[in-house]
């Protein structure tokens, strides 16, 4: 964390299709600890949005409570944000999305926020197929309250205070897969090369997209013995496939060469290009993904990458058959049946 951010703008900062530079996607200065994984995550989001040429104000940032949930303040200054209450971000995101389906919902949560207090809301927003990007910054601890163990901490590890994690961890990717999420991935905040394409794909995906991002807490969970420290993650990370994101430049989706077995065509015509590193890898098989995750875990490995993608999934509004005009933009005419109708209704009560 640095306190004085240079106002100097390089005159030739690269601009994207909208003519915007990386700076246009930044947020307030971070007040997280120097080296916190969440800051890397923040910059991956900024990079992904910039490279995709998303209009910043067409994004809504939503979060719960925690260091991770503070992070949305540190990217996309031009987007509205909603830092809500602990563990209840999914319901706020649901309401927001129902009100206006035209925005892109980028949600940020922590493992305390989503695997403990918010586990019920997490499960149900997955079920609801809400069109959103749900990112969990997974550090195995409660950062903001000073390092208590999270439900995602591996059984048997100790936190910095020496408390032992007594019970099985909850793997949010496994849960998302089991509950029917249409996009599930895991990554590492320290690996932007993997993370940025995943964020881009999640944003292009229509439907519920979940990314669990291992994001070390340098202050409370970066010690030897931790399985969420930078060192440990670096040493134990593995992946089943390398995914690259190829954005669509034209509106036509015919360019989508779905004949190529390694290309997945997303809803907006962009492509997720997959290079398998593992024979069993199959992005269309959620059960297989769970088995792979668990097998790797038993072998002491952290499996990352895109686990599952159902490119033609439908979202809440499709299922609900909502009008395509955002509900918050409907005029009084469209909403209010008026007096004539009312008098008919009155008659039904006589």
């Amino acid at each position: 964390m640095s306190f004085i951010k240079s106002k100097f703008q390089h005159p030739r900062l690269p601009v994207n299709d909208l003519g915007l530079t990386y700076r246009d996607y930044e947020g307030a200065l971070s007040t997280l600890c120097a080296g916190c994984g969440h800051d890397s995550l923040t910059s991956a989001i900024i990079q992904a949005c910039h490279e995709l040429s998303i209009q910043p104000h067409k994004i809504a940032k939503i979060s719960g409570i925690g260091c991770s949930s503070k992070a949305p303040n540190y990217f996309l200054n031009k987007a509205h944000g909603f830092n809500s209450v602990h563990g209840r971000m999914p319901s706020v995101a649901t309401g927001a999305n129902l009100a206006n389906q035209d925005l892109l919902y980028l949600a940020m949560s922590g493992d305390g926020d989503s695997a403990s207090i918010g586990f019920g809301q997490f499960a149900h927003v997955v079920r609801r197929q809400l069109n959103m990007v749900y990112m969990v910054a997974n550090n195995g601890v409660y950062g903001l309250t000073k390092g208590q163990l999270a439900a995602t901490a591996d059984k048997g590890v100790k936190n910095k205070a020496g408390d032992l994690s007594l019970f099985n961890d909850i793997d949010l990717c496994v849960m998302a897969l089991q509950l029917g999420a249409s996009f599930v991935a895991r990554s590492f905040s320290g690996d932007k090369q993997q993370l940025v394409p995943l964020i881009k794909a999640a944003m292009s995906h229509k439907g519920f997209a979940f990314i669990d991002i291992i994001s070390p807490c340098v202050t409370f969970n970066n010690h030897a013995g931790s399985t969420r420290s930078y060192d440990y993650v670096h040493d134990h990370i593995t992946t089943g496939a390398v995914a690259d994101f190829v954005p669509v430049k034209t509106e036509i989706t015919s360019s989508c060469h779905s004949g190529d077995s390694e290309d997945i065509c997303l809803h907006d015509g962009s492509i997720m290009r997959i290079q398998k590193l593992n024979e069993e890898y199959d992005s269309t098989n959620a059960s297989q993904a769970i088995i792979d995750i668990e097998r790797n875990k038993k072998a002491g490995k952290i499996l990352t990458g895109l686990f599952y993608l159902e490119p033609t999934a439908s979202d809440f509004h499709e299922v609900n058959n909502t009008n395509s005009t955002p509900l918050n933009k409907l005029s009084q005419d469209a909403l209010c049946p008026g007096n004539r109708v009312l008098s008919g209704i009155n008659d039904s009560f006589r």
Partner: protein
Amino acid sequence: MSKNTVNSDFSTREKSQGKAQEKPLINEFVVRFANTNGTGSASANNMFAKAILRMGIPVSAKNIFPSNIQGMPTWYEVRISEKNYLGRRGGKSEMIVAMNAQSIDDDINSVKSGGYLLYDSSRALLDSQIRTGINYLGIPISNICLKEYSDPRQRQLFKNVIYVGALAALLSMDFTLLKGLVRDQFKGKEKLVTPNIYALELGYQYANEHFICPLAIKVESRDLVNNRILVDGNTGTGLGAVFGGATVVGWYPITPSTSVIEKFASYCNRLRIDPASGKKNYAIVQVEDELAAIGVAIGAGWNGARAFTATSGPGVSLMTEFLGLAYFTEIPFVLVNVQRSGPSTGMPTRTQQSDILACAYASHGDTKQVLLFPDSPSECFELGSQAFDIADQLQTPVIIMSDLDLGMNDHLTKEFTWQDDKAYQKGKVLSAEQLDEVEVFGRYLDVDDDGICYRTLPGTHPDKGAYFNRGTSRNHFAGYTEKSADYVDNMDRLTKKFINAINFLPEPEIKQQKVTAQLGLIFFGTTSHPIAEAVEQLKEQGLMVDSLRIKAFPFHQNIEPFIEEHSVNNRQVFVIEQNRDAQMKSLLVNELQIDPNKLASILNFDGLPVTSHFIVQAVLAQLSANQENKKTG
């Protein structure tokens, strides 16, 4: 079977007339139905009430049902009153239709002396069930059904219709009208019309043949209903939300609020489908619990849609944290609280007004919430739509404080009205154009010095107006702050806004005598139903009454003077409420800085709607205690 019928002594013409009241009682009595829940009695009983209505006679109906699905006692009380006294009358009733063997002993005892007991004489009454002084009208309903129907479901269902038919004869109801009602009721399911009418006729004939009809209590057509309608409050609230422009609903089922959402959904389904695309102009989501339900409303309110949720007791408690967030982040939405008897699960199918403090001061920290207190289904409709304007204008949650009695019972109420030329008041929301014109935008800048700041919606403008909404303290520009001065400034502004809220809220309804009366009654919501009757009864005792019905919190400036005027010169103010702890009185005392000793409480909290009798007795008792005090003091 005839062996099982009760001694016909009690059901002969002679008997039933012999003991009847001297003067026939016309259009001013109560008929109570004792049934078993899950047997389909509700619709038959409702048909009875509606027939009275169509005869132009004021009527009200109270459904007293268990927290259970099938097999437990349930009662339905129809009060017929051409004097327009439509509160629950309480006490014994002139007639009971006793269809439930479980409760019949109690039911027999709840008939007025000289009154009537209509019962199923297919099974003999016990000796102990024979009470002198009341009239037994035995009809072998089960036997009739056994003979007439083979399908067990029909045997069960038509029992209810048969006794309605019998009542038509006994009370001299307009039978043609009743048949017309059946036709209306089964519009679309025509196949059901004939059998229902047939069942009505079975009862009608039996009564005519076996009893002298009409009885000494009876109805006569009048023209006293005018354009009023008979409907429950939850229908009013749900429909109000449709008219008020609500589009997003998150909810979780709970009695007695569920039907607010069900009604909203069914009206939306009829009235809110986009004609061009056939798609929905609304989104309702049954979520996992009440925390999520209010979260949905808040997310939608932040995003500029009109949103609401409805709940009761336990749900309100679960929504507490989010209510605090919404107060502090100033997000508009509507919460409908259909109150029931607490605490905890309490008596979930009984009424009460006991969430007042829990709602007014919901959540930890210094918080105050805006409350509305409708007293009738038509006010549920009116305030149910206005609440969205109020919430948007004040940028804060608005809680509609209904209750089980109001929400689930049918009340005779003014017809719903709507002004087509009245535009929704969306409050201070800046458009992209307005943002372009604004020099500096600060989400929490009190530009107009009324405590209400300008807000922006996500997605409005590419460069201006975005801010980070948060439950933590913030400065004028929505930036995080831990500075005491910023915090205090914001909290003081919220107080200012709350005081200013009075200007957006409905005024109390004050009824004053020409000369300030000795008694001032303050009440709200359903507590107002027995007031007209109580006032009349007090008048008979020589006591004149002024009254004030509270319609909203924060309190209007007219309330304090009313209290002051009525607490001097031997006058006395009463606050009537349906809770144990005098919650509205507490709120009045706290917020208006009134001496609590100026307010006498009348508290009915037994779960049943308060009666005029209860009020009158309480007033008289208090007055004589005052006298006593004066003597001794």
